[in-house]
């Protein structure tokens, strides 16, 4: 397969190491603003990321009696700038990372106000803590792209003689405009409204695009995929623009797409936005969730396939969901060793963190436990209340059974009104369980 848009070299990451002394704040601000502009953020976006960096650095200074070293890294994500603060030996309270975080008037709360302001200034802010990257905060500010009008070719393309390959930048734009012009917004990601963003996402290596091209250059159809963690790839489509020979073209596209990712590091492929042209036999149905969209119920099928032979794995489970897991594993022939876990009075951090991934075109939020804490039950209830107040119709929660502390949260999740619905093999460190909110 010929490659159209090449993934770019990321050797241009920019770093600054300073001590957590407030006298270095001007240096940090200058670094954040200059490097984010170098990587393509416009005035308003660069300033918001700079403001966030000011709040984070000031917070870290307040948290350290003796100065500690912190390393700032600005990464060119092509459609975003990523600023990380990596440090060691600094204690911090993560509760400001909650969607529902608000500041109490006591002194402790004011200390975290800076993090809250930072979180609200960027598109995504998260904590990382692992052996390879160390501990720190990650702030992402996306570039602003113009939305494009949907487009439909006046001439209907034909399926005869098509060749498969990666399109160049202009073809990508035509392709995503054609999808927006021919399909309901329920079957493609929001990014497709911004063709320039899709081009940058392909360039960054986050998206892959495969098209079927007519001999005279027209696009007869295509598929898109995106890495979702290291073990999972999501794909979208197939999007078919021909009238005759749709089924054959769709099957060839699906087979080409699977072949394109078959030797990647991913072990699974999910079709996140399947169209009616998806051929039978290539994906397994893990389950269906009824979605509320614009007042109507729409079934959302979870379509999955493995890219490798399943070696089996170990998963953690609370007793409350063990029967559900066993029934799912039996139904889908998944070999799993279930290890029971429960909270047994051990010390907990005071504050938990839940992340929230929004999908506006599907009126959907997926909650993710990010940090274990004694207030998880109340914190989850606050999240649900806030999301309901926002009018979000579809609220899901996902846990990773590769992490014992997440499996142990089952009683909290159940008390929040969630029921386990679907097991997604290898979605995280091990299988993930998706819960739906009752009522």
């Amino acid at each position, binding site marked *: 397969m010929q490659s159209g848009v090449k993934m770019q070299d990321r050797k241009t990451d920019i770093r600054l190491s300073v001590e957590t002394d407030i006298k270095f704040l001007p240096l940090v601000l200058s670094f954040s603003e200059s490097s984010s502009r170098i990587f393509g953020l416009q005035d308003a976006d660069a300033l918001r990321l700079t403001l966030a960096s000011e709040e984070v650095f000031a917070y870290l200074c307040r948290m350290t009696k003796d100065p500690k070293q912190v390393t700032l890294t600005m990464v060119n994500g092509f459609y975003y700038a990523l600023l990380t603060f*990596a440090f060691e030996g600094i204690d911090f309270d993560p509760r400001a990372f909650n969607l529902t975080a608000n500041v109490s008037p006591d002194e402790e709360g004011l200390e975290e106000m800076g993090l809250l302001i930072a979180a609200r200034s960027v598109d995504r802010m998260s904590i990382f803590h692992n*052996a*390879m*990257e*160390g501990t720190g905060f990650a702030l992402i500010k996306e570039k602003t792209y113009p939305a494009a009008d949907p487009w439909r070719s006046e001439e209907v393309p034909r399926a005869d003689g098509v060749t498969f390959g990666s399109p160049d930048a202009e073809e990508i734009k035509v392709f995503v405009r054609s999808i927006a012009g021919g399909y309901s917004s329920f079957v493609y990601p929001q990014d497709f409204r911004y063709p320039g963003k899709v081009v940058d996402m392909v360039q960054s290596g986050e998206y892959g695009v495969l098209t079927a091209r007519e001999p005279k250059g027209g696009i007869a159809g295509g598929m898109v995929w995106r890495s979702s963690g*290291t073990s999972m790839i999501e794909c979208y489509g197939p999007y078919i623009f021909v009238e005759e020979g749709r089924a054959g073209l769709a099957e060839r596209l*699906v*087979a080409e797409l*699977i*072949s394109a990712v*078959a*030797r990647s*590091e991913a072990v699974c492929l999910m079709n996140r936005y399947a169209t009616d042209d998806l051929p*039978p*036999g*290539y*994906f*397994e*149905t893990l389950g269906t969730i009824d979605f509320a969209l614009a007042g109507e119920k729409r079934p959302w099928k979870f*379509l999955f*396939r*493995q*890219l*490798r*032979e*399943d*070696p*089996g794995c170990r998963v953690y489970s609370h007793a409350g969901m063990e029967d559900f897991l066993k029934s799912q594993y039996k139904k*889908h*022939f*998944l*070999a*799993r*060793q279930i290890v029971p876990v429960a909270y047994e009075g051990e010390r907990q951090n005071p504050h938990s963190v839940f992340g929230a991934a929004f999908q506006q075109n599907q009126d959907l939020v997926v909650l993710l436990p990010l940090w274990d804490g004694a207030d998880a039950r109340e914190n989850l209830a606050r999240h649900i209340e806030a999301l309901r107040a926002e009018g979000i119709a579809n609220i899901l929660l996902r846990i990773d059974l590769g992490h014992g502390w997440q499996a142990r949260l089952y009683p909290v999740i159940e008390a929040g009104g969630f029921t386990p619905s679907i097991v997604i093999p290898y979605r995280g460190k091990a299988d993930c369980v998706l819960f739906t909110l009752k009522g």
Partner: protein
Amino acid sequence: MLTVPLTTLVPEYIKKFETYIPSRPDPELMKLYQVDHLWRLNNNENPLGPPEGSARIIEQFPPKRSSIYPSGDSYYLRVKLAERFDLDPDQIIFGNGANEAIAFVIKAFCQEGDNIITADKTFAVYEWVAEFSGFEARLVPLKDFGFDDEQMLARIDERTKILFVCNPNNPTGTYWDEPKLRRFLDTVAGRQIVVVDEAYCEFVEAPDYPDGMKLFKEYPNLVTFRTFSKMYALAGLRIGYLAGSRDVVDVIRRTCIVYSVNGLAQEAALAAIGDDEHVARTRRHVNVEKSYLLRELAALGLETHAGEGCYVMVKLPMSDTLVYRRLMAKGVMIRTMTGFRFPNWIRVSIGVHEAMEAFITSLGEILAEGNNG
């Protein structure tokens, strides 16, 4: 507690790699899938076991011998093989399985910016070793299930160092006959190294199949790979080799790891060389069971592809990785073909007749139950 500063110790490019996790041992798989037996039809292993002489060596291997280092370069093996193929022993290098030989060749000839050329749907290790080592692997689509010589030649540029041809191809079983291989080598004209992987050569009975070991004088840029894992059933001992012209092999030897082949493997392989009766017996078995398999698969209404080699490809009306799990739950292990870029195909190795029957019965049940997709 002492902590290892992995953030600074580990190079950035290593942080990006995912760990390769091989399949678990059979007893662990049997526990997970809750079965009391497992028919291994996934790795093209010889169900008849090693040749008699090799079996005797393995049975009688004195435990004390394990305290003594083996020959560092498989000396006696090279001498015996050289006699058999009319070569100089220094034209042969042994490795811990042929996979190691692939790494030796790539390391010997490629540097930053170079590329290798092979097919898209073939044994994955050529592509993997090249990519992991930082070299481009140019993949040429198969044509009618076979290596496309013209397109491979068309992809050569000034940075191409090695062309890998799997002959017969794993998994399709197609092969280049002698005239085709010669035309290819003539066109390359010595400018690149041509590796012909002959891992399954002993299974091929066709008279026009080329013997790479006879071509080194005419084509000094030719390197062949062979293994004792398949026909000679020594896969568990890990032993394979490469051969080529003296000058080329001298260069490859600079990159190779000495003492990587253990003493038992060397002695067992030595005893296997020249056991033509073992080869004939295995071929008869493969032919009989392959015919049975193809007949039964046709009766199930399935498309198949079978060429040379001890395996058959089968196209399924559902995901191959799902069928893998369902077959495992019935005690049958096959190879999924998604990783070979043949989604929804499986490769079935020729096993003992009982295993073939178990596979057919199990697959028939799965097809009758249908797909859940």
